């Protein structure tokens, strides 16, 4: 174990992103006294890797510079260098791609994206989201495209917005659509129809905006499944649809057709996230879909995620994210993000064979090695997955070490076959942060008082050790109950899955030893499900009684004398 003080925290933060969130985070962190480097992920800058550990990351960056110096065209100059940072914040913006292919139309003068519309129409949209719902007089756009759009906006013209039809809509696109529609009505008096599945109003002031649009005479056509069919007639596009209220067919040939876009993480950011071991959700946005990472955490200590990279959001929230992130980063530098930080994790040099199983299994990239393996105390979240996986039992976590667990189990044996053990003896291994909380809850007080039940807390279900389970059986447990957090709710990502897999393995051992594998049970339990804890124990006791009944066909006679 290397003393924690040996690990330094560089007072520098890399902000990998652009836009409101990145800028605000940079500003706040600067005010907090950190040196901040903000890099915009684009073709010019790539973040190749984040090596090292929380407080002392080595970030490899690549800059590609187009140079004009060479004759016969552009030469690209490449520079790759490594810089050190104490923390990294991912705060990218999303890139938008017009949804043309979904609708099978090509962009023309009459077919534009919502982003184009927004640019020429609502330059002050950010302010709008800040709550300033009045638009100042808008200038005539300078760009040719902008002037073309303005030319199409006449009182007699019809504008159709198609939003949230081919992809699930979001509050940001709806906010832009509604404010654009309102602006067009007020300024140009054109007729506006909005085609969507759901009017997304779950944002500050959006219900009022929706109402204001209706007051201005904007029409809304909502669809349950298929949106309007797009038919081409010459250079015009005809929308053909059924009004879901009247159940009658309609057509509309809009003078301007505005499509929503797909909002995606740029490939640069995706690549970086993958190489840095930062999770994404199934939709491809940053941050794993795991509530325990809320608001800004990632799989790795010292790496934070903020802003719209997590999915489209109103700029109000982007700013909120930025300030919250600044505080999270600050907490991290003060060494106060993890309450379990002081629990020692040790690697026995004599036992370790440098097989690096720990390194492969660690969900937090906290394991490093030189001539020996070390667990980085700032990067480690004390889940103990490594300790359970270590084939040599070389890794121990204070409070959950093999010796400490075995002591608890021996105490169980000492209680022995006292007459009060009329009920089956159950050893419960449970994640301390979920099952442990449920076990300590008021509702469970009766359970705690039952002397036939022994709760052995684990820092994470991933710390479940087959040796301990077998030990528990050998000292007289009738059944083993393992409690893990629900799927996709594990603070250490896969701890619950590892636990489940290990139980399958343990069942094999049990069968080989002639012990009925029904004596081990695995359940998902979250911290506030005390009723379920009681229910499981009741059911499991019944199962175990059944197993121990001499009349029962499923009873295995070998068990009586223990598995050995």
């Amino acid at each position, binding site marked *: 174990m290397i003393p924690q003080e040996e690990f330094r925290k560089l007072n520098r933060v890399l902000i990998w992103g652009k836009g409101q969130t990145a800028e605000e985070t940079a500003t706040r962190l600067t005010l907090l006294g950190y040196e901040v480097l903000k890099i915009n992920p684009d073709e010019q800058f790539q973040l190749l890797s984040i090596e090292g550990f929380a407080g002392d990351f080595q970030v490899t960056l690549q800059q590609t510079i187009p140079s004009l110096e060479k004759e016969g065209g552009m030469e690209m100059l490449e520079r790759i260098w490594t810089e050190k940072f104490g923390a990294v914040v991912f705060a990218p913006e999303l890139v938008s791609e017009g949804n043309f292919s979904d609708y099978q139309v090509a962009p023309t003068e009459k077919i534009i994206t919502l982003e184009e519309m927004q640019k020429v129409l609502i330059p002050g949209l950010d302010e709008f989201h800040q709550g300033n719902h009045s638009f100042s007089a808008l200038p005539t756009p300078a760009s040719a495209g902008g002037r073309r759009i303005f030319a199409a906006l006449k009182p007699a013209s*019809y504008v159709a917005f198609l939003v949230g039809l081919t992809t699930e809509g979001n509050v940001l696109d709806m906010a832009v659509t509604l404010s654009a529609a309102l602006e067009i009505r007020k300024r140009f008096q054109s007729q506006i129809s909005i085609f969507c599945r759901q009017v997304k109003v779950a944002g500050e002031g959006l219900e009022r905006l929706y109402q204001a649009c*209706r007051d201005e*005479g904007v*029409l809304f056509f909502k669809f349950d499944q298929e949106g309007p069919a797009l038919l081409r007639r010459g250079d015009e596009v005809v929308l*053909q649809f059924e*009004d879901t*209220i*009247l159940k009658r067919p*309609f*057509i509309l040939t809009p003078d301007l057709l505005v499509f929503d876009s797909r909002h995606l993480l740029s490939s640069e950011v995706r690549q970086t996230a993958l190489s840095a071991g930062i999770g994404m959700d199934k939709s491809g946005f940053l941050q794993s879909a795991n509530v325990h990472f809320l608001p800004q955490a990632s799989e790795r200590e010292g790496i934070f995620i903020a802003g719209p990279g997590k999915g489209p959001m109103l700029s109000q929230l982007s700013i909120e994210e930025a300030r919250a992130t600044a505080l999270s980063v600050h907490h991290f530098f003060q060494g106060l993000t993890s309450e379990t930080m002081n629990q020692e994790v040790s690697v026995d040099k004599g036992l370790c064979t440098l097989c690096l199983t720990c390194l492969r299994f660690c969900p937090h990239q906290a394991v490093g090695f030189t001539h020996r393996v070390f667990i980085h105390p700032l990067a480690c979240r004390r889940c103990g997955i490594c300790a359970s996986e270590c084939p040599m039992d070389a890794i121990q976590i204070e409070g959950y070490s093999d010796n400490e667990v075995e002591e608890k189990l021996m105490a169980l044996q000492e209680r022995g076959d006292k007459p009060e053990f009329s009920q089956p003896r159950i050893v419960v291994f449970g994640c301390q942060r979920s099952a442990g909380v449920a076990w300590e809850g008021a509702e469970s007080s009766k359970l705690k008082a039952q002397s036939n039940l022994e709760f052995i807390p684990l820092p994470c279900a991933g710390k479940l050790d087959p040796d301990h389970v077998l030990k528990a059986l050998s000292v007289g447990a009738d059944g083993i109950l393992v409690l893990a957090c629900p799927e996709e709710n594990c603070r250490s990502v896969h701890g619950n899955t590892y636990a489940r897999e290990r139980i399958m393995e343990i069942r094999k051992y049990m069968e080989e030893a002639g012990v009925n594998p029904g004596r081990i049970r695995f359940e998902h339990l979250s911290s506030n499900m005390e009723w379920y804890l009681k229910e499981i124990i009741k059911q499991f006791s019944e199962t175990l009684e059944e197993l121990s009944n001499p009349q029962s066909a499923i009873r295995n006679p070998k068990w009586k004398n223990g598995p050995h």
Partner: protein
Amino acid sequence: MDPIDLKKLDPDFKHRLARELGGEQIKKCFSCGVCSARCPIEKIEPEYNPRRIIRMILLGMEEELLKEEFLWHCSTCYTCQESCPQEVDFTEVIFVLRNMAVRKGLAPAGLGAARNLLDQQGRMYEIGDFENEKRKEMGLPEIKGNAKDYRELLKD
């Protein structure tokens, strides 16, 4: 059914209706259908459906709507108006629609006849000698047709 071209409908209809007394809130409707679900007439005569009537107004289907006989089915119980979350005064809207229909000469024929009776008699029923004799038996004063006063009232 041939599709209706949205461009051939009258987008101004809803705005005009909203300028009439009682029609002010019409554009607030977001088609939740509470009005129709609670309407007692709709249960007997499904043709009369407040949510659909509002939809026709918003889409500008003036011509078709004002001709519809069902506009005259409303019993003016005000249940729709009481339960609308968006504060659309739908019963008032029905009055506005009826007035618009009358102005366009689209009211049902029976209504025209009733109006003519009112115009001529000042009453929906003609009061003749038979009625006055009955009144006399019951100690009530005789009534004489006084269409002039009513005509004055019906002006405009």
